């Protein structure tokens, strides 16, 4: 699939940053594609609006740094409130999945 379900992009970004520390946009997008093991081919540019939104909500913060190819770029990392939000969202997803599983397994 190449369309990300609405709202799940935020969760993926948070999870990625939680696990891997400061990353820039390319790094985050690459990592998400990796984890999806090829089943996801997103338009990488779409993470930037998501990153801005997450930053406005205070769940991630950015710092200027230099990328591997010596370009100036922003590096994002998760904040404490971001971690809390990640836990909440993870919970929510798991509950939703459990409920859907039960629903779809009904005869």
């Amino acid at each position: 699939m190449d369309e990300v379900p609405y709202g799940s992009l935020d969760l993926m970004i948070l999870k990625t940053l939680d696990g891997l520390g400061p990353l820039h946009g390319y790094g985050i997008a690459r990592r998400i594609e990796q984890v999806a093991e090829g089943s996801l081919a997103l338009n990488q540019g779409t993470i930037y609006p998501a990153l801005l939104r997450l930053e406005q909500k205070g769940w991630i913060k950015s710092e200027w740094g230099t990328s591997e190819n010596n370009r100036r770029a922003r590096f994002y990392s998760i904040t404490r409130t971001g971690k809390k939000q990640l836990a909440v969202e993870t919970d929510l997803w798991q509950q939703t999945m459990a409920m859907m599983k039960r629903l779809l397994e009904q005869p």
Partner: protein
Amino acid sequence: MSRGEWWKRMVTRASPGASERNLDDDVRAHLELLAAEHVRRGLTTEEARLAALRDFGGVEPMKEAYRDVRGSRWFEHVTRDLVYAGRALRKSPGFTLAVVLTLALGIGANTAVFTLIDALSWRSLPIRDPESLQLVSRIRLGRTETGFTYPQFQALREAVRGGELAGYSSSAFPLMLTATVTDGVEPPISGQIVSGNYFNLLGVVPQLGRLIGPDDDRVPNAHPVVVLSDGYWRRRFARASSVVGSTLLLSGARFDVIGVTPPEFFGVDVGLAPDVYVPMMMQAAVMPVVGDLLVKPSVNRTWVQLLARIDADVGPSQVAAPLEPVYRESLTRSLAGAPLPSLPNMRARFGYDDKIVFVSAATGISDLRLQFSTSLFILLAIVGAVLLVGCVNIANLLLVRAAARRPEMALRLALGASRWRVMQQVLVEGAVLGAVGGAAGLVLAYWLTRGLIAYASTGRTPIALDISPDARMLAFTVMTSLVCTLLFVCIPALRVVRVDLLAAIKNVNAAGTFARMRPGKLLVVAQVSLSLLLLVAAGLFIRTLANLTRADQDAARDHVLVVRVEPRGSNQRGVPGTSERLDRLYTELMTRLRGVPGVRSASMGNVSPGKPESGAGSAIVVGGGTVRMDDPRSGNRPITASGQAIYPDYFKTLGIGLRGRDFSDADQSANAEPVCIVNEAFVRIAYPNEEPLGKICTTSGVPRRAFTIVGVADDSRYANPRAPVQPVLYTPFLQANTGRGQMILYVRTDGETAAIAARVRDEVWKADSTVPQFEVRTLAEEIDAVVVRERLLATLSTSFGVLGLILTAIGLHGVLSFLVVQRVRELAIRIALGAPRVGVVAMVVREAAVVVSAGALVAVPLGLAITRLSSRWLSELLYGLTPDDGLTLAGASLALVVVGAIAASLPARRASAVDPMVALRAE
């Protein structure tokens, strides 16, 4: 969202430039990394770049999404719209100028009138805690009056509990002083007499020196100190700080200057600003005409106004009630010696039943307010109506402009712009016009306000009002601009929303809506109605003014000079010898003036338009004898006539017709037979069928005097232009039975009025240079000052009525022209098919007639409703006619029809000149 989030949003919104650059950096880094990845896999640089772009997805759409999240798009859009609007407006200067001018005039006029209302009626006094200031008043026979005598003030001041009282001289006893430093005549300055605690009570702090205090108010005539106002200090002493300690000669007495009041302080009378303040103990020194009112008060001279400051936890009525017995006791004491009136009516008239009340004085006290308040509100309605008419024109102009840009807007809509974005552009353009017009209006209002005040000040002491901008006035201007903008912008904006795309792009006229121009015509109907109402109002006010100032006599009012002459002690004719002294003084003055070349005649009387008789007439019995007045058997008929004291040549100087004979010098001597002259009104009542000359009439009062009528004068309204004609009994000065000896000098000139005025001033000064000198004015100026309110209403309502009419004509012309242009194809076809050109013209004229008649039909019931609702206020402003006066309505309608015809003539001509070949070919 949380505050931190909001703050972050604001920050990013505020710096879109930086944010864009950051995003660019990020994107560039990302794309390069992607491309590097592909290069590692074996693609060429160029292929890698393209592959990276594919992986990334659309950059621009992503950036748009990014900007949406950032949230500053609205801000950018508005900024861009503002720039576009500015450019577009600059490109059509005629349109912009017309709109801005209309708005500036309308908003400026509204703001000016509002400022006057605010300054006159709503502003709090610039003193400490104005809300708790009260004016002590009495209710006598149902009417609220103010003013007390000095003993009453003293008694009340002692007795008051729960508050404090201070006093100052009332404007009914104006204090005019001559301040002389060198020889010569200066225009009189105004003064106010204040009690020792006046400034303390008001909480006024001096800007220089000190103010009058309780220690300056102990012993009569022992505290010759004076406090200057800021205005006088600026005018006379150029704000020199050395003024403190210098001496000022006021009406011949020396006073030491002790300080200056702050610039914003003007006392408590709104519209008057005293130049100097003196302590109450110095009253006799500065009021030489009236004499000493502290030591020898008169019960009629209620010259002290009382201000009260009540303690916070006490109610005004609690403080007022205990003062009534104190007041009554003081009244009894001052009337001691006179027989106690037994009739209840008489008791009330003398004040025994007065109730003491406190009236809020937070906005000051003002005679000016009573005089002008209603007129100003009516003026506000008038300029508001004109503004509405102007807004309609602007709306139509914007509509036409929007119509011309229909193809462009339709294209934008077709390309995907939201209707809101397109409408926003129209709104922004309207807002720019509104803001510029409002700002221009504010500037115009500044000048208009000053002009209005100057106009209203002709022929009297200049009106002093604080018209500095305050929050209320600015809020009014902003609100008015906003409302106007909304009014004239919403119609074109709504038009945008309902545009039929395809038809618009092809610039084809949809059959029906646009061509009929219904909203445009409806608006013009509204304009016509408002115009008609304005014209009727203007007509009513013009005729009122004409009725009031109609010259009954032939006197060339510009050639008669008028000046008050009030020598020392002239208000106390009761003092033995005063009458004779005054008579000698006056006679010498008149003789000197009669010798001046250019003077046709000179005389004196004791009333003038600016100083009318109070109207309390004395009962006169027609017939002689000592029979009692109320005895029906005697055949004597009592009438009430006002008495005027005059000198010979009075009627000749004023140009009043006289039959019989005038008074002569012989009539003034001590043993002459008492004679009188009466006016036609007197004759109409007392001698309806007989010849009055030679008859005798007797005045009431003690002692009874019998006069022989030697002359009958024409009715004259100079004494009081507002009141209907009263019966008048004229007597020579020495035989007049009045305690007031102040007179008014009249001088009739042959033409050189200005030069002779200077000479008159000199001679009056020589007669008594120690008393205040009054301005020399012409009779015309005096009458103008009396009818200033009517003049103001007449002039302004006419100007704005004409302006409204012009705007309506423009609006009508605009709509009709547009109609012709829109229907040019239809007209061309008609003409080509053989319709007579007259028929085409008739069509245009018919459209115009429909609009005008509809407007008139709407206006008539509206006008009737308005007059019904406001009849109370209107009747006080009109004279000699009622609001539903037929002649005025007919005249206004005629003017409207004529102007409408002129407005329609141009489009009609254009319609008749349509050349079918040209019109049908152009597409």
